[in-house]
């Protein structure tokens, strides 16, 4: 009976896990020429999992290890769809590099499975297993162009630092287990409220540090620019969005379920991370020359905003969900636009190579303009609404000083998005660009169209869904 329910609750994960294994076998027989069909199969698996998740029942399974609630479902659907887009992007990318390898879509599938476990994690074991599955897949993906020195470097850096952070996280988890005597978040909360102590807080800080590394919040952000610069762009487009979403939901769940009732002990830590992140993200981005590095700093700043929503507590959960959907689409669009830009066969990687784009390729210029303005937070674009939710939640949680500080920091970050606009619109182009690859081009157009006017419809539909999803989270 109980197993039956558990299995039923984990249908999306089962779909992903089983199809990953089966497709792997299929791919092993077909070899690298089968990448297209492997991609298609993985896409089908993701769609099936997304449907299964969307219509999934709520509840707890496997003795509370797996929690399926509104937030988990919302996040899962968003993450699966993100994975789908990345498979499409990656297919074209590796095709053109003549570097087809069928493992790529399967690794994406495994990473989404890891994230899926993360957003549903109800105890420390599920937390760690999900996190590691996701991370290991991403380490491999980051180093996926093994003939490329920078990609290998990115993968190695990511792995070494990631392993360190996993160690921190495990140490924290073991402390929490040792002091509270339970793995389960609900049990931990019960114990912490009754017996608050330094040992638990010590463990919690390590746990938060480990997760902060995964979401690249300052001061655990150092790997981000290097990995973003070196890793293959579709992988970065993935790593910048979905895993951070999963890790943020996980962080929110640990804090609001596992440490419910002891907000005072973690709120300051989260706020410190948040403020540091948007300051580092804002100021660090000012000096960047590489487009992907710039986006890395932009994502650090955005993680600062998301952390603000977590610090706000219960009122920030719905904000977090909406924030991440809109943020993932913006990032996806910007990275696809970067992939669409090539000059003499070389990708356009430095920001100043965008000069004069308005005279070369108007549709892409408009798309990048819209997306950059959106990340900057210009209304009515989606990035504005993501800030609206996050800062609104912060103010509702009584953190109005931090909200004001975050908004002012966003003005610093505005400077470097404006630089992109300035280069594209005001300057003269050095030479013509190559024809833009279709799938990258269209994904960036679609993202821009989502930023506006699509966001109007999205909010109209999804606002209530997110609000409802957030009800009862953390208890």
């Amino acid at each position: 009976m109980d197993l039956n329910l558990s299995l039923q609750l984990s249908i999306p994960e089962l779909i992903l896990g089983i199809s990953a294994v089966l497709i792997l076998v299929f791919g092993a027989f077909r070899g690298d020429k089968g990448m297209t069909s492997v991609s298609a199969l993985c896409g089908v698996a993701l769609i099936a999992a997304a449907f299964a998740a969307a219509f999934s029942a709520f509840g707890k399974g496997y003795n509370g290890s797996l929690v399926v609630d509104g937030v988990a479902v919302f996040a899962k659907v968003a993450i699966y769809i993100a994975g789908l887009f990345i498979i499409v992007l990656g297919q074209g990318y590796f095709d053109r590099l003549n570097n087809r390898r069928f493992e790529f879509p399967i690794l994406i599938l495994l990473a989404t499975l890891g994230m899926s476990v993360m957003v549903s994690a109800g105890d420390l074991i599920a937390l760690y297993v999900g996190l590691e599955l996701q991370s290991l897949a991403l380490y491999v993906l980051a180093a996926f162009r093994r003939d490329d020195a920078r990609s290998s470097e990115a993968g190695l850096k990511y792995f070494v630092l990631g392993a360190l952070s996993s160690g921190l996280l495990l140490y924290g988890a073991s402390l929490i287990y040792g002091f509270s005597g339970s793995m389960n978040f609900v049990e931990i909360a019960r114990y912490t409220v009754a017996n608050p102590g330094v040992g638990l807080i010590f463990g919690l800080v390590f746990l938060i540090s480990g997760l902060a590394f995964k979401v690249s919040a300052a001061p655990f952000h150092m790997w981000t620019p290097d990995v973003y610069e070196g890793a293959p762009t579709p992988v970065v487009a993935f790593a910048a969005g979905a895993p951070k979403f999963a890790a943020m939901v996980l962080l929110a769940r640990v804090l609001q379920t596992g440490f419910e009732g002891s907000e005072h002990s973690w709120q300051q830590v989260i706020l410190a991370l948040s403020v540091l992140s948007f300051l580092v993200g804002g100021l660090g981005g000012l000096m960047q020359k590489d487009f992907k590095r710039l986006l890395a700093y932009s994502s650090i700043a955005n993680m600062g905003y998301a952390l603000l929503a977590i610090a706000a507590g219960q009122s920030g959960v719905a904000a977090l969900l909406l924030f991440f959907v809109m943020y993932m689409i913006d990032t996806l669009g910007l990275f696809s636009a970067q992939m669409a830009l090539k000059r003499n066969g070389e990708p356009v990687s430095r920001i100043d190579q965008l000069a004069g784009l308005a005279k070369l390729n108007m549709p892409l210029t408009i798309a990048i303009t819209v997306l950059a303005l959106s990340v900057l937070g210009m209304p009515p674009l989606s990035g504005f609404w993501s800030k609206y939710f996050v800062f609104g939640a912060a103010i509702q949680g009584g953190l109005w000083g931090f909200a004001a500080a975050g908004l002012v920091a966003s003005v610093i970050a505005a400077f470097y998005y404006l630089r992109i606009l300035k280069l594209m619109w005001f300057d003269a182009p050095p030479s013509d660009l190559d024809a833009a690859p279709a799938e990258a081009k269209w994904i960036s157009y679609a993202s821009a169209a989502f930023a506006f006017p699509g966001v109007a419809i999205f909010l109209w539909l999804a606002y209530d869904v997110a609000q409802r999803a957030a009800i009862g989270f953390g208890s």
Partner: protein
Amino acid sequence: MLPAIPNILSLTTFLPLFGAIVILVMRAMARKDDSEVIARNAKWISLWTTLITLVLSVLMVLAFDKSTSNYQFVEHYKWFGPISYHMGVDGISILFVLLTAFLMPICIAASWDSIKVRITEYMVAFLMLETLVIGVFTSLDLFLFYIFFEGGLVPMFLIIGIWGGKDRVYAAYKFFLYTLLGSVLMLAAMLYLVTTLGTASIPEMTAKLAAAPLPVDVQGFLWFAFFASFAVKMPMWPVHTWLPDAHVQAPTAGSVMLAGILLKLGGYGFIRFNLPLFPDASEMFAPLVMALSVIAVVVTSLIAFRQTDIKKLIAYSSVAHMGFVTMGIFAGNAVGIQGAVFQMISHGLISGALFLCVGVVYDRWHTREIAFYGGLTKLMPHFAFVFLLFTMANVGLPGTSGFIGEITTMTGAYQWGTWVAFVAASGVIFSAVYALVLYKRVMFGVVTNDELKKYPDLTAREVALFVPLIVGTIALGVYPAFVFDFTTTSIDALVAGYRAAIGG
């Protein structure tokens, strides 16, 4: 009675945007080598779009009921959470809609020959700007307002940055970041209001706050956040420094928009938000605003006197004139606010015309150095007349709209405190000094520069640009009731609420 047009507000607001989309589609469909045809079509589409918008806004003004202070032509659709698509105008905002729609065709026509590169983008930017600016005046939802208010930065950034003068990039950045910094503070305050009141509708919010005012210290913070945004936009001394740069670098039509409309967003915001939502704070901070206003009037007039660039001089004079507006608004009495609205409308016409005058000489000689010119009266008598008229209107000569605006705001300020009106009146004298000196240096004297003889007097197109502005300036100067008829009921209701809230 005219037949009512359904959703006329949305129509007026979004028609320019539609025109912009038409231009973009046309361009995307056209062949690459047709660039001249595309440019020509873009110009005509823009001109017609702006003219139809003008017709629509005139129809709206004709159908407007002046006897009520309620919002009219209201459209209200739920969007999500507390936010809705809520539009409507009252006696104050409808005039600004008309002003925008009136200046816009002039801007398009003024750019007809002077913009030579990337014409389609230029036209698209202007049409988008028109939608965004009209939207500021017509939106009744706090966040809808913010969308339009902030959104206007982007087209203006592009207009200054692409078609501007030598230091255009610096000016564009400065304009954008300065205003953005001001408005994020306002955003924080708006978020606070929405989360505490649970509504984003401006009329509802005003009613709720009138029934149960916020504590004075909270009001103070919120007032200041709104003030930061509008003061930068206005711009008030000492946060005005972006304006001269932006004006000097912007193309002529960009300056007309900036001085004519965008500066008014600040004053409109004060009237719509600061006074009715935070009356206690407004009263508390009124001395500060008054001090800043009179400093603006006096100091920027003196600064203007020392300028060597015609456009910069007029830009500083704009700051001085906006000082009268803030003075009138925070006097908190009906005369002062009436005068402030009038002064904004009047300044929209006069400063727009003055920047067009600069455009006339700039298009010919490509310099704005005062020293370059001299003796133009002999060479361009028609231009001399137009420039003189608007210089005088700017100084506040009776018979022009400038006079009415200054006298009524000063009357309002006098009721608040005599010293304010006294100091501001001295500013009027200074403004006469710099304006007349400018006129003398550019227009009178002997022609020492042979370059000046190369070009003819005003062309028919330029005359056509100035005629409506001349008519407007004189008409408002002679018959100010046209504005006051519209604003009286709305402003009386506003002042009554304000007085009741501060208990006097």
